[in-house]
């Protein structure tokens, strides 16, 4: 169970940090946890959670998604401008925007895997295209959101605000799919090592495309909720979510170089960042100081995980695991592995030597 513990430990770091932050906020600036502050915190935190989980999927497949703002902004614009106040047109607008998001996600995935464009460039270009559509519809002007959406989003289930309900459902669903299903297992494997995945016969490309489509749907959900939270959203609502989404992923311990990630940890990272913003705001510091604090949090987060990763791999090498795995009561057999380690190291040196 060690590895499971280790993984829990991974999200445990940010979890502990988040709890500490809340305790600290309670002591230093109780107002940052007051009723109105919390009411303001959770809906926006939920949006960031959704964006961060989407970003996690792409980062796990060794990519990075810079089209987050485009997706969210376009979604907001479509679900506000197309109905233009008429609640009856809300559902078709939502269906339309999901359709567009899925197509855009597929395009991102195909361009990255089949055409070979770097993710950072592809998603940058996609962001521009999505903003083009956004402006073609909105002409850059804000519109009143529909009352239906506003009423729906401002509601709550069992005392939990609706946006948070969606965020929780999304996080749990993604976590379950990634960690418990055949699809998820292979998705993670393809993210850990493209070459090993290919050699094992996995359709690595398919998992990458899936990551872009899944993330697009999460951003789309975030955008719909955001359009309900803000009464008069403008055409650029998504801009505020790009960097925090990447930061949340990094804080959650998913390496920006790809590999195994934790959607839950990213989600907690998103909550952490949201509360950090809230806290800094209520201390009376300018909105600007917020960025500086965020940067420090991100730097510390990445550095802690990075250094720990390095230490971890060093420790791992030293620990020779020499216990035979026994399923029944078969007697342990074979000589000790000391020699094995030595010859393994020789092969490493040979590789490095070349």
């Amino acid at each position, binding site marked *: 169970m060690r590895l499971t513990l280790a993984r829990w430990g991974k999200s445990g770091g940010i979890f502990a940090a988040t709890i500490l932050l809340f305790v600290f906020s309670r002591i230093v600036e109780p107002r940052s946890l007051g009723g109105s502050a919390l009411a303001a915190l959770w809906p926006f935190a939920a949006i960031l959670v959704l964006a961060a989980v989407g970003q996690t999927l792409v980062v796990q497949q060794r990519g990075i998604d810079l089209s987050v703002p485009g997706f969210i902004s376009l979604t907001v614009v479509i679900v506000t401008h197309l109905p233009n106040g008429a609640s009856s047109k809300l559902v078709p607008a939502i269906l339309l925007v999901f359709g567009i998001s899925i197509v855009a996600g597929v395009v991102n995935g195909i361009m990255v895997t089949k055409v070979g464009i770097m993710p950072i460039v592809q998603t*940058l270009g996609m962001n521009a295209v999505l903003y083009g559509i956004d402006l073609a519809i909105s002409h*850059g002007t804000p519109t009143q959101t529909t009352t239906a959406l506003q009423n729906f989003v401002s509601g709550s289930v069992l005392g939990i605000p609706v946006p948070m309900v969606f965020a929780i459902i999304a996080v749990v669903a993604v976590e379950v799919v990634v960690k418990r299903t*055949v699809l998820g297992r292979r998705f993670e494997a393809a993210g850990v090592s493209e070459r090993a995945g290919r050699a094992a016969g996995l359709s690595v490309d398919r998992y990458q495309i899936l990551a872009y489509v899944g993330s697009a749907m999460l951003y789309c959900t975030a955008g719909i909720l955001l359009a309900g939270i803000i009464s008069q959203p403008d055409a650029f609502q998504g801009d505020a979510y790009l960097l925090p989404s990447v930061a949340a992923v990094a804080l959650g311990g998913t390496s920006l170089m790809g590999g195994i990630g934790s959607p839950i940890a990213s989600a907690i990272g998103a909550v952490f960042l949201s509360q950090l913003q809230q806290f800094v705001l209520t201390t009376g510091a300018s909105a600007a100081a917020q960025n500086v604090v965020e940067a420090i949090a991100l730097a510390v987060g990445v550095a802690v995980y990075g250094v720990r990763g390095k230490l971890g791999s060093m420790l791992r090498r030293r620990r020779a695991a020499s216990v035979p795995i026994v399923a*029944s009561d078969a007697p342990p057999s074979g000589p000790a592995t000391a020699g*094995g380690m030595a010859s393994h190291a020789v092969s490493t040196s040979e590789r490095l*030597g070349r």
Partner: protein
Amino acid sequence: MTDVAVDTVALKLSDVWKRFDGVAALKGVSLEVLSGEVHALLGENGAGKSTLMSAAVGSLQPDQGQIEVLGRVVENLNPQLAQKLGIAIVYQHPALAPDLSVFENMAMALGPQMREHGGEAKNWVAAQLAEVGCTAGLNDRVSDLAVAQRQLIEIAKALAAGPSIMILDEPTASLGAGDAEMLFSHLRRLASNGVAIIYITHRLAEVRALCDRVTVLRDGEMRGTFTVSDVSDAQILELIVGREVFAEFPPKAGLLGNEIVLEVRDLNGLRFHDANFIVRKGEVLGIGGIVGNGQSELIRALAGLETAVGTIEVNRKEVRISGPGSARDAGVVYLSSDRLSEGLFPTMSVRENAAVSTVDRFARFGFVRRRAEAQTVKEKSTELAVKASSIEANVLELSGGNQQKVLMSRALLNEGAHVLLADDPTQGVDVGARLEIYRVLRRVADEGVAVVVVSSDVRELEGLCDRVLVVSAGRLVAEFSGQEVQESRITNAMLSSTARRSLVGDSKGKAPGRTPRFFGRVTRVAKGDYGATWALAIIMVAISLYTQGHNARFMTSFNLNSLGLLVAALAFISFGQACVIMTGGIDLSVGPLAGLVVVIGSFYENSGRSVASLALGFVVMFVVSALVGLANGLMVQSKVFTPVAATLVSYIALQGISLVMRPFQGGYIANSVMNAINQGIGAVPIAFVLAVLVAIALEISLRRSRWGRGLRAVGSDVTAAFRLGVRTDRSLVGAYVASALLSCVGGIMLMAQIGVGDPSQGVNYTLASVTAVVLAGTSVFGGRGSFVGVLLGAVLVEELLNVTTFLNLSQPWQYWFQGVLVFVAVGIYARAQARGTSRRMLRRHLESVAA
């Protein structure tokens, strides 16, 4: 040529130790090489030869031990110092930056010699290449050359340095017979002039033909140094292989009938030719040969990991293996020799690694039943005696042998497997685990699976296999079965084969690439550094003419002037971005940094300030920028941060600092300052002229200067760059500092255009600069690019924003233009640069060679 008396000690290594992750790879090796001798260094793969030589040329620091060069003790050896001391090395994998031209690579390695020859440098380099029979053109890009040509360049590079000590690591592995003979005559001549030569090889015939003395290494230890004429081949072989007792191999089973499971007919690939063979049910077929003769590629082709044309039948049914997926569907399972990067999933557990291919077996409604999975994996692990703390242990905690067993349990869990292909399955595996692996392979065969084992270990082939094929230069040259499977026969066939590479390794050949007749020229231009530049220029002119045709106000001096100013600011920031992208990184912080420069300016550059205050402002801007660049560079260089993470941190922080300093717009810039920066000559702003000049200057230094070549070399291949003598750490950090300083200049221009401290103005420049750089065809994988192209990219970005107003296009077009342009530019470029080989390309190549 240095004149050194023959028989003095040229290179002396004493008691050299090197540990990797705490395990010794070199255990107190001492070696003495005399001037004027050719000294052979022999040993198996992994014996420590390459590690020892890396220590001797300073590309690796030994943990302990002393290195003496020409009687002088040398501390802290590094590649640059080694070059100065007259040590040259010919690496087995040539240390050449693939994205640079032949001449540029030579120039980087041969700085001092080039300066000596001054204006004649080009001719001199050409002569050096001709000397070794290299036919590559000086301006050919190394990545376009065949392996043999690269090897010849590597040799010419070492010879031209006029070394007093020369080290060659298996230089003939990819050379044709003629080239090898030529190399030998050069080496004999050098030795007679007093040069000390260390020659690493696997071929005993070469030792006999060339070398005076021989040193044998085994498992990081010295086995002794001998005069070649005093020892027999048999004695040398025994020293290499050691007295390691190979306990019994599992008994070879009789065939399970004569059923043919795998049949390969006329299979051709880039590195193997006309392969025809069968594997019967229950048989273990060995494929032997000296490493690098195409045997690995052959079975990789069967696993769908290498392109090949020909017929493959599994169980008498023809299968079309177009990729690893279709190979798996056909029941072909592959075990890579590159266990760490192509076999294992490093951060995953033993269980996950073992079950990855077959996890659907344990699933219900798509959900993995963990218990069933764990149970089955545990059983298999027990069966194979995998030693690990538990099946949840990280697979990297296991020893090499146990890792291999995990991979074999992955193959065994696959019940639909008909063919198991194992590439060097016991590499880096200790003796005990080795025997278990043999036992497992035999058991797999007994279960009716056709097993193919590629190995360079002849004893292993003899003990394990029912039948052995020997590959030399990509061709099957011998077959032994039954009683004939003997170590001596196989070794003899491997070492004595006269077959030389006939196709791709041909010294005249170029690497096969996409060169369809019709598009040939277009592709060549597109692949060049200036391909994108030309395309941009054409698009730019076309758009200008079109816009002018629709609206005559476009080409007024007023519009051109404002366009020029906008371009200048973006161009400088993009130059910075290009420096970083050239190294394979990305700098997200350029935009906010330019914004911060604007904000800083708004505190110093106001009207009524003294000249000193104005000047101080600029000093502050540059100092702050340099520090930001330094911080970025150091973060990236630490390897803890990826370029994205490092510059993202700076991005947020800089944006925050700008907002703290100027929460709202404020601090008007003095008109005098603005006018000075914005002034123009007619319609052309001086800022724009400056951008053009800087682009040209940067372009020239990118091509000609050590800095520029180093920058591209680092982005192209860090290891090769280091070996070529580039200070890779400085190059990398320097690129981020340069990026910040150029962004600072861009920021100053931005300040003069905005005229007020506005904290939000810079941010957009990050994405715009990346767009400009990418449009310029700068490879986002590093190594290639052009500053003139970046300038044009910046022009195009700003022009597209500008023309939309003149064409009465709505604002969305600005975004669509930008987005679609990026897709098209990068898409074309990615395809032009694609390194893979398609089946069609392979066929065309095979045809052209046959013709």
